[in-house]
């Protein structure tokens, strides 16, 4: 198994290299790993899923509101089915709560029937329109003034962190080489292979897949293409304390109108409630900060949707950048002459669509001359349970009896045990930072944000990192 974070890249020529180890890049790597191919997955950051994939609304979409006939609509629909099954198989936290698109005014109420029709055109016919009474019966803590809602029973909440990590873990165990801290520089395309300059040496590959997210337009231009330009659209979100979880049972989506998008209120699989996102078009691909204006506007909108939510403590605030383009669809293009596939413009539906995007890209690569050879079964993975809907280690007498480390809670707010932290630190794809550890275990992600456990968790992380360094040095 190959995961590298430093040192020179191997000199071999890969069959396929994928630039970007977000949810899309890792899904593609996992899909291709079902064939006997030499595959490299290269990532600029020190971890997988470190960009848009880690900071989004974490919803598994039915695709009911996609634009009918688009590639996105098809891939979201297929991806929803695939990822639902994959989550059950691997232990990715997923809760099919259903969504309510709550109408707060006459215009929004009037828009519901056409949204239901659009859902049917997208192959989803399980929606129903609820009157105000039915809405409040389902969501008694909603603010006053809801006139009705469109119910979409299939919308679900999911853990985006575990999803990306499961793909990466399975890919690496099946032979994919994951190279972290490896940003792609200049790309030279020759007769039979590409040469990608990186700070860790040259990466050589016959076929190239660009899954670089926010930077996919820049990589695309290096291959002589200009189909799309990424304009980051920032979404700020507020995560409320677990005590808010009892206030809301569904994903509460805004009704899209001409006046733009509202914000959603949704439970998270970790037992919190999120409010957001904002939607700000920015020029800066690194502007992942929150702003006073953004947070104030979220609180203002949240106060209307669910006033009681605002009385709860805030556990976290984060901002993610969507890789939005000037087009209304995913930008997935193949250039057979250059043995190249671009996967750009993957918006918030990318998490849901990831497995279907991967299958689509695999097909495009064969059109580019890749001979994948026969399919093979790859070893299934079981991911650690970090969702609240399933028993976690601290609740399991059998695990604790076998290993007392699962009975020693280190992060108290999130009830993360020493055993879980140890497992994450020694996993196939270990975290490169405390943030990465938080996404794997929830440690440090709770209401105290490290007041109680920050130093202890860091001590365990530092010890594991030092042990790894000693092992590397001996090699």
């Amino acid at each position: 198994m190959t995961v590298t974070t430093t040192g020179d890249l191997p000199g071999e020529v890969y069959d396929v290299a994928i630039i970007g180890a977000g949810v899309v890049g890792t899904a593609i790597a996992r899909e291709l790993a079902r064939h006997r191919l030499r595959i490299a997955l290269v990532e600029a950051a020190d971890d997988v899923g470190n960009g848009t994939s880690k900071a989004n609304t974490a919803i598994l979409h039915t695709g009911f509101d996609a634009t009918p006939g688009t590639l996105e609509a098809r891939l979201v629909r297929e991806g929803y089915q695939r990822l639902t099954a994959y989550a059950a198989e691997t232990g990715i936290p997923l809760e099919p709560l259903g969504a309510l698109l709550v109408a707060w005014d006459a215009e929004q109420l009037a828009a519901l029937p056409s949204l239901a029709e659009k859902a049917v055109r997208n192959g989803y016919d399980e929606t129903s329109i609820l009157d105000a009474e039915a809405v409040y019966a389902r969501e008694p803590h909603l603010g006053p003034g809801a006139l009705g809602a469109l119910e979409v029973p299939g919308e679900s909440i999911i853990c985006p962190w575990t999803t990306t990590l499961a793909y990466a873990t399975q890919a690496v165990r099946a032979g994919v080489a994951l190279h972290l801290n490896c940003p792609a520089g200049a790309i030279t395309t020759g007769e039979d292979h590409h040469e990608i300059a990186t700070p860790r040496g040259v990466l050589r590959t016959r076929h190239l897949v660009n899954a670089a997210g926010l930077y996919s337009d820049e990589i695309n231009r290096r291959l002589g293409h200009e189909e799309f330009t990424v304009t980051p659209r920032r979404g700020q979100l507020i995560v409320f304390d677990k005590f808010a979880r009892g206030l809301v049972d569904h994903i509460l989506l805004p009704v899209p109108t001409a006046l733009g998008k509202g914000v959603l209120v949704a439970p998270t699989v970790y037992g919190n409630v999120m409010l957001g996102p904002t939607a700000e078009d920015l020029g800066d691909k690194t502007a992942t900060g929150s702003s006073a204006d953004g947070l104030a506007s979220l609180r203002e909108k949240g106060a209307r949707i669910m006033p009681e939510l605002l009385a709860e403590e805030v556990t976290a605030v984060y901002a993610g950048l969507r890789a939005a383009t000037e087009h209304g669809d995913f930008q997935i293009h193949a250039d057979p002459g250059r043995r190249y596939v671009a996967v750009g413009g993957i918006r918030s539906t990318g998490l849901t669509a990831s497995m279907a995007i991967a299958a689509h890209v695999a097909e495009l690569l064969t059109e580019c001359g890749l001979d994948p050879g026969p399919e093979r079964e790859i070893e299934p993975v079981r991911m650690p349970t970090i969702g609240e809907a399933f028993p976690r280690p601290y609740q399991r007498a059998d695990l604790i009896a076998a290993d007392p480390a699962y009975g020693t809670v280190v992060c108290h707010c999130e009830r993360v045990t020493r055993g879980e932290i140890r497992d994450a630190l020694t996993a196939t794809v270990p975290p490169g930072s405390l943030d990465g550890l938080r996404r794997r275990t929830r440690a440090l992600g709770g209401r105290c944000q490290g007041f109680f456990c920050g130093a202890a968790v860091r001590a365990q992380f530092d010890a594991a990192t030092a042990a790894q360094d000693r092992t590397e040095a001996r090699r």
Partner: protein
Amino acid sequence: MTPTDRTHRTVDVLVIGAGPAGLALAARLAAAGVDRVEVLDREQHAGGIPRHCHHTGFGLRDLRRLMTGPDYARHHVAAAIRAGAVLRTSVTATGWAAPRTVDITGPTGLERVTATAVVLATGARERPRSARLVPGTRPAGVLTTGQLQQAVHLHHQNVGRRAVIVGAERVSYSAVATLRRAGAEVAAMVTDQPRHQTHPARHLGTRLRYGFPLVTDATVAELTGQGRLESVRLRHRDGRTAAVVCDTVVFTGDWIPDHELARSAGIALDPGTRGPAADAEFRTGEPGVFAVGNLLHPVETADIAALDGRLAAGPVLRHLAGRPWTPGALPVRVEAPLLWVSPNRIAPDGPRPPRGRFTLRTTRFLTRPVLTVGQDGRTLHRGRLPRTVAPGRPFHVPADWIAGADAHGGPVRITVD
């Protein structure tokens, strides 16, 4: 072994939290002959927050001497064990299975413990940056004092080279000492108040010793930096902003009780303290469940928490002896600029609060304020405080008026003229 196997036990008193309050109470109860007094702590070592407060100043009111935090923690641990209380560490109370019945996770497995009296002594924590809605990026190097002290004193970790401290109250000065001990310089101490809120001698002593600018009337507008903190942007009262270059920022004070167990039991919280509403005898609204220490008043010094524990022994013993559970139910509330009052439930015919007075906090400086205690338009007490009161520091209102309150009237309100 099935996943849900739990050992069931009963004890007389289950104390959750082995800080000064829980330990002092357990020692008293065990010394008074209570058979099974068990104290749980989720940390590896008992003693609570003082374990990582290496400055002196502990023990003045309860032990009549001065010691460092770790010494003080050790003293209370030893006293509780000597008295016969059972201390268990690395065990976490995860929730309630029934009234006075707590589910516990520990390295030895899962337990369910039923107690005649459950005492919540879970303390308080500082609000982190996120809860304060401080905008900006999410770099490393953002701490609370609790994390800073543990990083430096318990784990000997590097905490950066140049720090901004947010807050200028007692705990903020502890953060200065801890940072300096870890070899970091203090770029600035920032408070949104017009001046610091600690004792002048402490402020002067710390500044003379360590030398750092105190920036008043300023708030943290933004954190910047990718990966590691690079700077903190301050906004002054007149709207000007200025960036302070630093790789560490410590958010101090702004305490909130760690009230998860209280709240998950359905115990009513006080809107001021955010801890469980409790009467002069530390009784909550849940029969058999008491609350002591900084869970009730975020925060007082450790010795005050320990005195709570001592004073709660009587009410707990009376409960064990079969006294009916009739806690004071008349709410005592404060109005802005006051922040909270403790205790915040009274029985007019009941005992006075500990030390015969109510403890309060304000959100801003008040110069010799006139405080009025009233109920339904009737004045029960009115008096001028002899000094200026500062945010983050306690002041008191005598409790000799409680017999005059109407048990069946509206809430008692404490206001400032």
